[in-house]
Each structure stands twice: as C-alpha cells, then as structure tokens.
C-alpha cells in the first residue's frame, strides 16, 4: 500500500481514536460534591471545619487553603509517612505523591491542591479522592 493511502488512513484512525476517547472521557466523568479520603466521604466545608487555614507561596503567588499534613492527621490516617497518596480528579487525572511532598501542600476551597515546590502538574484540581496507598 502506497503512502497516498497510508497517510489518509492514519489520519482517519487518529480522528476516530480521539472521538472515541472523548466519548469515553465524557461517559466516565465522575460528578460528585464530596472528596473521599481513606474510606470516608467529606464535603469541602467539612474539611475546612476540621483544619485551620494557612497560606503557602507557590510559583503562581500566595495560595490559601487547609494544610494537607493536618488534614491527613485529622481524618485519622495512621503513620502518614508510611503511605503514598494518589490525588484523583473528576476527569480521571491523578498524581501520586509521597508524604514529604504531600505534607507541604494545601487543599484550597476550590477543590484543588497546591504545593510550594512542585511543577503545576501536581496541582490536581476538581478533586474527588485522596487515596491512601
């Protein structure tokens, strides 16, 4: 088969893959107002009532929220430094971080985590779960 056929077929396959992926992403998008930590569900308001707010300095300036270090302690996770934490977003995005990174971060009231010393890639937004591994 010559390139006159191969390239257009590749293009059609690519368009088909991206359309089916879009449908899949839309169909599997999780809509919920709570954040799962461990086995329990919390609303943002409940979490903010549990932990005092603090500010951290990031590459995008000052961000305010509740300390993830205090949060993990308050929700009853034993030996926090023994675990890793996968922060999951509603759209399927997730980042796994170790305790030494997590403890530096905050959870803002917009449902997004911020860390002072990491690339923005780790700032997961629209959080639905913090899985303790």
């Amino acid at each position: 088969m010559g390139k006159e056929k191969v390239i257009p077929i590749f293009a059609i396959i690519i368009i088909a893959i991206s359309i089916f992926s879009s449908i899949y992403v839309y169909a599997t998008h999780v809509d919920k107002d709570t954040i799962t930590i461990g086995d329990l569900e919390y609303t943002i308001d409940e979490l903010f009532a549990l932990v005092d707010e603090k500010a951290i300095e990031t590459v995008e300036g000052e961000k305010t929220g509740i300390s993830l270090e205090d949060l993990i302690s308050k929700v009853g996770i034993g030996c926090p430094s023994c675990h890793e934490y996968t922060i999951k977003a509603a759209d399927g995005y997730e980042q796994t971080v170790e305790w030494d990174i997590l403890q530096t971060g905050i959870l803002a009231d917009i449902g997004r985590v911020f860390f002072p010393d990491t690339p923005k890639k780790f700032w997961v937004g629209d959080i639905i779960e913090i899985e303790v591994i």
Partner: protein
Amino acid sequence: MNDRMKLLAGVLVFGSMWGFSEVIIGSQMHDMGLPSGAIMSGFFALTFLVVSRMTFKQPGMQLGMGLVAGGLRMFNPFMGCHLCSAIAIAAEAMIFEITWYKISSDTDYFKKPYMQASLGVVTAYVIFIGGYVITQILTPIAAGANFYAQNLIVFMPKILASGLLPAIAGGIVLPILVLSKKMDLTLKDRLYYPVTLGISATCWLLVLGNFFIA
C-alpha cells in the same frame, strides 16, 4: 552567504518566534480559559516547524528550534509550569524530526490537498500527544519526584481525546502553509541577517521584559 550561518540564524529566528508565541500568546489564551496547549501545538508549533522544514529542508534544524523555544519558555513569568512547558516544546520538536525525517525531501506528500490535510492531522496529533506524554513522564523526574506509570495510564483516554483539536487544526493549517509556500517570500541576502536577528532579539526582549516587569 555561508549556508551554515544562514541555517543557524533560521534556527534562532524560528525558535524565538515559537518560544515567544508560547510565552505571550499561549499564556494569554490560558488566562482566557482556552485550550492553549492544543492550539499552540496544532497551529503555532506546527506552523513554525513545517515552514522552517519546507524552507530550509534541513533535518535536525527543528530540534534546535525546540531547544531555543524551550529555553525562552523557561523565562515565562505568567504560568507556573516553566519546566513542563519547556520539556513539551523540546519533545514536540524531537517528535517532529522523527515523523518528518524523510517527508521534506518527498514532494509526493504535498501534491494533493487530501494528502496535505492528512499529513497535517497526523503530524499535529503525534507531536501534541507525544509532547504531552513525554512531559508527564519527565516532569516529575526532573522535579525530583517519582513517576508513577499508573497515573499516566488512567489518564491516557483524556490525553488521546485532547488531541482532537490539534489534529483538526493540523488538517487545516498544513494545506494553507503549502499554499502560502507557493508565494515567493524569500528575503534578499543583504536583509537576511538584520531581519532574522532583529526578530529574534525582539522576541527575547519582549519575553525578558515581561519577566522583569511581572
């Protein structure tokens, strides 16, 4: 005129314009809530990569452009992820080099509009997805954190879906670039260095100026 010097000036000017567009235009689009990464890859990156390749027909040049643009991107004062954007730009240039290794010397690819559009779709999608995936892998490593393959695997459907916009843009942009190439836009030799170096310097000064003002 020394061909090597001319090529070097070409790397500098195209790389600077690419980096400038990423920093200034990309950041503005990001602030407006537009899918800046997809638009930058499908329109700006593809334009600079394809025009430079069709003009100079020199494999390897686009990797140099990626390094210049990535370097400029590191000075971006507007968006926090300097590192991942710079990695993405360099990765896009490298993937373009691989994808287009033999294409620029084969005119068959540019004869028919459907071939141009198909090539635009494939190129834009591959550089965008490839850049995205490589960034996801290298950014945590470069930042001193661990890379977890599971994080990438579960997010692949979203990454593949996000390539739709650049793919469509590529299918439109590449035929336009081929059409515009038919116009004679070459510079006279005596103007080549002043123009290319002037544009490059302007791009760098504007980005650095923004860095110190912000």
